[in-house]
């Protein structure tokens, strides 16, 4: 029989970035998601593609249903956050790239296909904030519950929003 605590610990935080194609902030959101899931917290996080949620893909829906999600939106339409919610998932915290940029105005992002240095630095800064939230969530047996709220609250002070 699987211990509930172990089960909680085996969860991975789902990272869902905006799939924006025509805006710089969309590219920043995607790059930040890659930094988190490949470089900073590869063992605690998994990337879920927004297009699969749009299609209603079973594996993508199962991933967001079983794990807390952190969404990264590139514009005010907040597609990533809305799609996770509509797919039956729970957004532990959502980040809006524009709000993050307001805190790191020294990193001015430009480019879409290829981000400039400022865009890459902004993505790194955003990824570090996300990693901080993941750290709090992962270190608690009650991952996805109260610990998320506490972590998210701190994240919110950095510009993220509680889901």
């Amino acid at each position, binding site marked *: 029989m699987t211990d509930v605590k172990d089960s909680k610990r085996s969860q991975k935080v789902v990272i869902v*970035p*905006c*799939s*924006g*194609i*025509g*805006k710089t902030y*969309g590219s920043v959101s*995607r*790059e930040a*998601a*890659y930094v988190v899931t*490949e470089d900073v917290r590869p063992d605690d996080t998994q*990337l*879920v*593609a*927004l*297009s*699969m*949620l*749009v*299609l209603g*893909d079973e594996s993508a829906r199962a991933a967001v249903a079983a794990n807390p999600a952190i969404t990264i939106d590139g*514009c005010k*339409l*907040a*597609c*990533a956050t*809305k*799609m996770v919610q*509509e797919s039956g998932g729970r957004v532990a915290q959502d980040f809006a790239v524009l709000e993050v940029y307001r805190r790191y105005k020294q990193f001015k992002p430009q480019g*879409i*296909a290829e981000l400039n240095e400022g865009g890459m630095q902004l993505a790194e800064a955003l990824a570090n904030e996300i990693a901080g939230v993941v750290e709090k969530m992962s270190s608690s047996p009650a991952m996805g519950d109260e610990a998320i709220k506490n972590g998210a609250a701190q994240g919110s002070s950095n510009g993220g929003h509680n889901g």
Partner: protein
Amino acid sequence: MVDLPKKKVGIVACSGEELAEGTVTRLAALKVLEQLRPQETVTICLPLFLAGGEGDRAFARFYPTIAVDGCELRCAARATEMYSGKPAASIVVTELTAGAGLPRPQGLRRLDQVGEKAVALTAARIAESVDELLEQRWNRSVGQAISLSIDSGQVENQLVVPVVSEEPIQATCSCGSGIPVRTLVIEDQPVTLIALPVIFEDFRQQGKLPGEGTIRELLDTVKIYNPIPAGAEAAYAESLLREYAIFCADTQAVK
């Protein structure tokens, strides 16, 4: 004179972040939008079919659309058909690269050389499709290519699509502002009509006042972009006339 939307081709890339082929779709779409066919193409983010408004969901009906997918799941093609309209063309990167004898590309964030070749190959295929679709006649009211079997009068009616001015060469998505829409109440039901705000503005600028003399032309123009059920023309005409009068009054009041 107000410019009504020009005929362009829509591109919807799956942009799948989990696969290198998803990155290929995004970069290939951008190459077409910015370099190969900048004046003839527009794009929209796939999630907006659900997260956006009526104008976003009208995208694939309004523009003949090419779905560009990274893998056989075909998220872009299937979701576009489910929520917007049947894509006019569908391209799958894995099929394209296999056909060209290329191995699978690597690198989600930074594509390898194979990935770069795949981008070039996919972009070229998209551009070919754009050219093919631009040669076809497109019925915006039903979102299909016009068959030559339709009588010529009907075809002419569907083709009155004025040209817009040149636009800057930078890929921009159509999120939230792609296609102007306005919702009317027709026979006690809300009906969202594509392009109605620009049609109204066009008529107003031409000095066509709300009245019986205008309504037939207004109805015909609206029919270019919207299906009107058989037998409902009178109700549409009445509602359009009422709404156009409100539009003109509001515009006058703002001035």
